């Protein structure tokens, strides 16, 4: 029979309110910036209890901070998770997730369609610390399964790949994770909870670069790691960092301490404490200013991006457009299923004329800013092969869906007519000999 559950706040409401009560000390309605490194203990017994995690609270702003906590709790609420940890950058969130789960000898299976910075970490830096990654085609679940070894402790992909704009089949890879008892971590930076929630599709962990759409203003660097709280760490038997006593924190067995919060406990009590990549309170405050309007902004981003994708697809100077909004895109049906409100304000395309045409195109634009970022209120453009992904060899570039003439656009909040006019100018210039 059908059941009617209790009413809960809509995402638009959570984006404005979740995680924040009016300040108990002053009544301030806006989130106060608690610009403090540390917190006075009321007595020695409470101090000891805080250090031994017998009572919750703030000790030192590397571990937690009231302003940062509002951002963390708001993100957990928006994603449908149990909690979150804010980090100094999206890269720090990815590192924190990995370092919490594994050490030397660990293995990751990751999509080949990754942001260049994530690819750097997995392909070049982590092997130096004994953690290997096997990259597999995002769209090939059989390849994901074949790459799993007894040491594999994480599956990792982007909800929508950057810049190839391929859509990760999160339900399929999450089901593989459940079968193999390995968590799936999804980088949901491009989709944001306004377009789709990884945990609704079965993922276990999520990260964001909060620098992008969550903020929307391009003025801060930040990241966040969210736990869906669903993964069975004890049942998996693969994660001694969570299921065995940890000498570095009072012999705590994190999975016994908190059934759903074990991962975040270890990540905070070890990862934030020791690696120290915490978020500053001012940064959290600035991200929160953007987060309040996330659902409104994403709707406009998507509306304009779809117009741009249609325009480019019909233009004679464009060889190919990569965006799931277009029926020609191999992930069109998957995107409609997982992200019915749209899935990406990022798109890429191939110009007629290759690299030189790409340079002429970018140089002729006036509204689009040529820079290495996405998810700003301002429209952005870049040539990945010579910038964000320049460390990749040709084979890795092809695997990531990037050609020598690939142009990536991040569609902002300007009026779409103005964006189309600017693009038209660039396209005209690109074909001039």
């Amino acid at each position, binding site marked *: *029979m059908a*059941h*009617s*559950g*209790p009413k*809960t*706040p809509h995402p638009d*409401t*959570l984006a404005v*309110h*979740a*995680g*924040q*009560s009016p300040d108990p000390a002053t009544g301030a309605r806006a989130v106060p910036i608690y610009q403090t490194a540390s917190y006075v203990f009321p007595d020695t017994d409470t101090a000891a*209890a805080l250090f*031994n*995690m*017998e*009572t*919750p*609270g*703030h000790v030192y702003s590397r571990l*937690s*901070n*009231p302003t*940062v*906590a*509002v951002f*963390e*709790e708001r993100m*957990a*609420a928006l994603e*449908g*998770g*149990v*909690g*979150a*940890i*804010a980090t100094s950058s999206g890269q720090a969130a990815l590192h924190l997730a990995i370092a919490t789960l594994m050490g030397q000898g660990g293995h990751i299976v990751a999509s080949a369609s990754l942001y260049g910075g994530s690819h750097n970490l997995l392909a070049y830096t982590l092997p130096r610390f004994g953690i290997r990654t096997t990259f597999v085609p995002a769209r090939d679940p059989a390849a994901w399964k074949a790459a799993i070894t007894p040491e594999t402790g994480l599956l990792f992909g982007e909800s929508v790949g950057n810049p190839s704009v391929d859509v990760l089949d999160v339900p399929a890879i999450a089901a593989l994770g459940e079968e193999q008892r390995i968590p799936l971590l999804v980088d949901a930076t491009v989709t944001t909870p306004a377009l789709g929630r990884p945990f609704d599709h079965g993922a276990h962990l999520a990260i964001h670069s909060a620098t992008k759409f969550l903020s929307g203003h391009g003025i801060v660097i930040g990241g966040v790691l969210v736990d*869906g*709280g*669903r993964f*069975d760490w*004890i049942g998996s038997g693969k994660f001694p960092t969570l299921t065995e006593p940890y000498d570095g924190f*009072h*012999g*705590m*067995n994190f999975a*016994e*301490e*908190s*059934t*759903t*919060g074990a991962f*975040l406990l270890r990540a*905070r009590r070890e990862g934030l404490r020791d690696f120290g990549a915490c978020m500053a309170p001012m940064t959290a405050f600035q991200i929160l200013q953007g987060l309040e309007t996330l659902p409104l902004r994403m709707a406009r981003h998507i509306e304009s991006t779809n117009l741009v994708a249609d325009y480019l697809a019909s233009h004679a100077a464009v060889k190919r457009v990569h965006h799931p909004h277009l029926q020609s895109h191999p992930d069109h049906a998957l995107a409609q299923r997982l992200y019915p409100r749209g899935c990406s304000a990022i798109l890429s395309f191939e110009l007629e004329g290759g690299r030189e045409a790409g340079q002429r195109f970018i140089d002729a634009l006036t509204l689009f800013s040529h820079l290495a970022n996405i998810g700003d209120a301002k429209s952005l453009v870049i040539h990945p092969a010579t910038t964000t992904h320049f460390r990749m060899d040709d084979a890795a570039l092809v695997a990531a869906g990037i050609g020598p003439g690939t142009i990536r656009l991040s569609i902002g909040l300007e009026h779409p007519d103005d964006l189309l006019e600017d693009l038209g100018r660039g396209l005209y210039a690109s074909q001039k000999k």
Partner: protein
Amino acid sequence: MTRYIVMGYPAYAYTGGRPFDASQPTIVFIHGAAFDHSVWQWQSRYFAHHGYSVLVPDLPAHGRSPGIARTSIEAMADWVNAFIEAAGVPRVALVGHSMGGLVALDVSLRYPQRVSRLAMVGAAMPMAVGPAFLAAAKDNAPEAFDMEAVWGHSRGALLATSPVPGTYLLGASRRLNGRARDGVLHADLEACNAYRAPLLDPGTHPGPSPVRPRVLVVAGKRDQMTPFKAGKAAAEMLGAKLVALDAGHSMMSEAPRELLAVLRDFLRGE
């Protein structure tokens, strides 16, 4: 955690991060419907490091404890009594939340020699469960866990700052419930709904105060599951001390420090 064999099955219990020592005064914390030991995280660990031994069992078919979910409060109380016996402790203080409070009460009434003090957090007697909630739980419908999570907190907690930095209380509660095996939430809710404490029947327990240990009822002023007036009535019925907290039903996480202070006073006081 420690493990005992109780009624033929392993029983897992959290011990507050220290090895269990039966020679110390012992507190047994009992969780509510479809939860596990971890709901008592912010109280039990403190006591384990402040002169007490604590045992926080996962009831049968809850958390890590295997076995068959008990279908009545009395059967759960029999199990808790057997669990205390298996732990080798002659007498304990019992602290129970919601359904766990009813279990603790029933142990106190039927095995009074076992119990030195009784604290019921989020109490109602009877503990009526609405038909919509029961029906959703019977179907293992996600809406049942939504009801438990939303009604299990104060309305304000849906959006409020968490006392546990970085934790979204509603989400954490919802996920913990969601881990319950099929049928467990329904069995637990049915047990709560059906339970009638023997003290309500004068023929069974004549006299004004049949509960032997000292009793505390902690009631949340904004409790949507067991409303404050139900907690107040339960306290009057039991001749118990009543303490009100500015929180909803999940006082352990909504007001962890305040609840700890109340329990500390009660368990230490004469």
